[in-house]
């Protein structure tokens, strides 16, 4: 590892975070600026903070005059609205309230009545968003930026690094990664993807020289009741956990877009694989029964040789998913070798 790599570790948005920047004394200043940006967004959009904008909006629920928001927030709402539309209502920033019914630590399933009581408060279509004013018409409704603001923060922090002149670096916010630029020698970063069945180990590492990667999985919070596994991904339409994919990772130009695609794919459940295949995204997935697939598997193999990687055809899920899909046992054989090369593990 080059000696001039500056690493700043901190906690934000409920996750361990890392900013890695190549460069001399300047790198420390750049990394600090990136951290400041992440903390700014956390302070603005955390629903756990009394003084945040998110809290102010949520407190306004039931007030027909709503809240007038700034340009950045308006753009985030526009993005949420577009994602809601493109996912047929699956991507929904009002669905966080369903967690009130689901206590994953308790090991007890909620009653259908408890879920039914919350469903009328869920639905982006119930929100009145007329820029710059947002109105939550029903008391008790809540917006949760947690579904995408961490990914946006990774992109913003990487952009701040570039604005400060950094060209080689990476921002990792609890596994949501945005690349500032490849290593000074042009080689890509290696980003570890966690194995959903063994969360402390990397399923594999991916070379990433640009853009961002985001992952989503049901290993993060779940409970097993009567031998059935219930993940934390809740369908905003039914209020129940979605069953299907165990984990998804997507590479895209922006970490934000990658994160939205993983969220939607998880919510699609059994149909998530087919949907990912048609979305045109670079992806990797693990199905509920342990099948590993996605164009990124292919890409990783080619990416192990820099020259081959550079010439790699843009790998989308389409087509290659079936040819490269393998049982995880076959993957883990090669894992030991690649995992040691990991410099940026997804520490979620």
């Amino acid at each position: 590892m080059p000696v001039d790599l500056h690493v700043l570790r901190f906690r934000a948005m409920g996750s361990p975070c890392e900013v890695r920047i190549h460069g001399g004394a300047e790198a420390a200043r750049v990394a600090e600026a990136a951290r400041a940006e992440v903390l700014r967004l956390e302070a603005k959009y955390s629903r756990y903070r009394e003084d945040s904008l998110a809290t102010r909006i949520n407190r306004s629920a039931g007030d027909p005059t709503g809240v007038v928001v700034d340009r950045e927030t308006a753009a985030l709402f526009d993005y949420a609205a577009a994602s809601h539309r493109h996912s047929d209502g699956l991507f929904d920033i009002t669905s966080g309230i369903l967690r009130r019914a689901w206590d994953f630590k308790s090991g007890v399933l909620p009653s259908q009545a408890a879920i039914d009581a919350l469903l009328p408060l869920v639905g982006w279509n119930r929100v009145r968003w007329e820029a710059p004013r947002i109105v939550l018409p029903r008391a008790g409704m809540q917006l949760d930026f947690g579904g995408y603001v961490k990914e946006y923060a990774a992109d913003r922090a990487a952009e701040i690094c570039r604005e400060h002149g950094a060209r080689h670096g990476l921002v990792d916010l609890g596994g949501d990664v945005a690349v500032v630029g490849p290593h000074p020698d042009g080689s890509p970063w290696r980003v570890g993807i966690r194995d959903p069945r063994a969360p402390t180990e990397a399923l594999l590492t991916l070379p990433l020289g640009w853009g961002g990667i985001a992952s989503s999985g049901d290993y993060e919070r779940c409970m097993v009741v009567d031998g059935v596994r219930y993940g934390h991904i809740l369908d905003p339409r039914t209020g129940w956990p979605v069953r299907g994919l165990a984990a998804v990772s997507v590479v895209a130009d922006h970490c934000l877009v990658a994160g939205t695609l993983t969220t939607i794919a998880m919510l699609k459940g059994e149909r998530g694989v087919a949907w990912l295949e048609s979305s045109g995204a670079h992806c990797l997935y693990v199905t509920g029964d342990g099948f590993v697939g996605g164009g990124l598997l292919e890409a990783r193999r080619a990416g192990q040789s820099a020259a081959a990687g550079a010439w790699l055809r843009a790998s989308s899920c389409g087509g290659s998913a079936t040819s490269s899909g393998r049982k995880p046992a076959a993957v883990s054989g090669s894992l030991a070798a690649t995992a040691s090369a990991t410099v940026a593990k997804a520490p979620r």
Partner: protein
Amino acid sequence: MLAALTASALLLPGLARAQEERWGVDYGFTLYSEDDLDSDKLQAGSPERYEIETHQLRMRAPLGGRIDVGLDLVHETMSGATPWFVEPDANGEPVQVMTGASVEDQRSDVLLRGTYLFDESRTSLLGGYSKEDDYQATNFGFSAEHDFNEKNTTFSWGAGLSLDEIDPTPTATNLNPSQEDKRSLSIFAGISQVINRSSIVQSTFTYQNGSGFLSDPYKLVSVGGVNLPDSRPDSRNQFSWLTRYRRHFSSVNGALHADYRLYVDDWDVTSHTVELAWYQMLWDALAVIPSVRYYTQSQAEFYGPYFVTSPGGEFTSDYRLSPYGALSWKLRAETRLSDWPFRMAWKVGVSWERYQSSGDLAIRDVEIENPGLVSFNVLMFNLSARF
């Protein structure tokens, strides 16, 4: 889906520039080859017309987040004979006299451009120098673009100045040519408007003023049986208005490009150009682009294929100032290679164009067609990398 979300993400503050801040290198090779002159139109000289090989290298680099610099290098090799003068044959039909031995010339061109990116506007300064055996040009330019209306409207304007020196090589009829100067100034203003999700229209008005030596030092004009040097006015005012329309059809993953250009100048030349192109995307990575272009122009007021009596001080028989029309077809294919895991994308393109001009193709009847009208093929290959 990916594209739709990315488009939404790009509207977020600070994410827009992520895509643009890339290094770029483009290389292009063009082979331009004119058809031999028909033997029934050739009075004397070589029938082998011009062939030009062009190598072009463009480099673009972002410096910091706000500044972009670009360098364009061009090297051309030209060879072949060119139309010299037109004279009447025994029946009074105009026939072409070409230059004899093959002319061989080279041109090198360098252009440096710097762009400063403001949040909602861009300003560029450029300077260039071009050199041939007998010609050199120095040019400067300024241009700016401003976005309005949430980037749905873009206004652009700019100005350019070119100072040229012509130092003609001696010919059989002009043993001691004098060195001449030429100056051209151009200004343009245009607006582009996003109409909806899938269509955009752009309209640009350009004015150009040329002054100084605007004649062709290598052409003669037959006036009353005597060959006199090509002689044109020492100033020219040109106006052109170009309108372009782009429409994407998502159902077939293709796009229509339709352009119309109107041109008038104070030498009495009026021309119309219509171009239609269809961009068909196949499997996301390959684009096939067939296009067709029609052109028609009226003659300059002092043009004639040849003159029986002297028309006064200004005369030319250059086919480029004659009345004619032209039709060209072009087929282009472009493919994109690799974009992952490195932020590097390659694009490879090839194209072939066939151009034919004649008096019959003009919109108005042409009584006497200039025998020097040209037809040519253009083959092009280009490779570009972004990283």
